[in-house]
């Protein structure tokens, strides 16, 4: 069994999905977290000068969704067939877009401007997306985003939306009962619950 080593900052950010996948799969991993001050020196050792990076048997894999996809495929969380796998990819890409969409607000140093940007993000970008995904969940009718069983798509939505709830409260999900249920479903999975309780507490 390969030993996984995940390299990232001491944040959830773009590494948390991989951590959730490995936790759910019951797979042991070395959760390497470095400080911001250590990053400039480590940057040169990462394949594309970015993190997260998954180290497998001494080989380095970059790109957060690629890492998550690789782990999902290896541990039965990718979807049952080509089409399901593609749908899971699609949902993971959605979350990626939302994370990227949030970056300007996150990086804004002026507190008032930041508040404005976050509000715009939540009321426009997120609200629009929530309405769409709520309909998809309803249509799929299984409680999961893809097919009948848990896939990394569910974990991706849990990861990001549980963070949004933490930061902004539950109100934005008031008309999204299916998405709310999905978040609760994942939160209650024993391995996920265990991980969330034991992981380092970080702002993002």
């Amino acid at each position, binding site marked *: 069994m390969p030993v996984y080593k995940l390299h990232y900052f001491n944040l959830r950010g773009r590494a948390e999905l991989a951590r959730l996948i490995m936790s759910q799969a019951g797979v042991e991993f070395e959760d390497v977290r470095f*400080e*911001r*001050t*250590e*990053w*400039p*020196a*480590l*940057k*040169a050792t990462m394949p594309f*000068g970015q993190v997260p990076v998954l180290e497998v048997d001494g080989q380095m894999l970059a790109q957060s969704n690629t890492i998550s996809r690789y782990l999902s495929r290896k541990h039965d969380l990718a979807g049952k067939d080509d089409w399901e796998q593609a749908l899971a990819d699609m949902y993971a890409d959605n979350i990626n877009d939302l994370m990227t969409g949030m970056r300007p607000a996150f990086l804004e*140093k*002026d507190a008032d401007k930041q508040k404005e940007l976050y509000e715009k993000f939540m009321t426009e970008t997120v609200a629009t997306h929530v309405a769409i995904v709520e309909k998809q969940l309803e249509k799929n009718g299984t409680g999961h985003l893809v097919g009948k069983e848990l896939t990394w798509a569910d974990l991706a939505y849990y990861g990001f939306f549980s963070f949004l709830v933490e930061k902004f409260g539950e109100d934005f999900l008031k008309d999204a009962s299916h998405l709310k249920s999905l978040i609760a479903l994942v939160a209650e999975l024993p391995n996920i619950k265990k991980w969330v309780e034991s992981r380092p507490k970080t702002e993002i």
Partner: protein
Amino acid sequence: MSTRRRNEYKLYYFNSKGRAELARLILAYAKVPYDDVRFENAEWLQHKDRMPNGQLPVLEWKGQLLPQSLAIARFLARRHNLAGSDEWQWAKIDAMTDTINDTLGEAIPIYRAGEDEEKKKEAIDNFLNKAIEPLFKRLEKMLDDSGSDYLIGNQCSMADLAFFSCYDFAVGVFGDRLPQCQHVAALYARVGQIPAIKNWIEKRPVTPF
């Protein structure tokens, strides 16, 4: 009734890192508690007249007020074991700190540019190309030649903390555009991992600059 021992030092500045952060890093390194007074702009106007130069930062020690960020840093560094092991080393530490201070001075046009995006971009590019890059190149060579873990001599000094403050600021301004220099980045990591410094970085107020 409990009596709290009064802190020996009181540092006055705005609520930012700016020209006070070097003193704060020195006090953090020395593990010396102090009053970290941060004025809001309106509040500052009430205190301005009693400050020697009408400027901040100011260090209050034994009821006396000392202005000038580098004078404050030197005073604290000498008292708390960050001044090297002999006079010549101290002079080199002093010179290095002045050099880094000059480099940071090149960032001032960025703030003078205000809302003018074009002027701001030009000021940022200038700060990178004419100030930060040459400094980093010089420090990289110095560290490579000396093989030392620190800028002057073999122990942490005021110069390393000044460097840390500068690098930290540059990371905030440039992110990925920051020149990749192995020894320079390693020094930044090294200082950042000193437990007392790491602790300060974690608990200090988060401000844009």
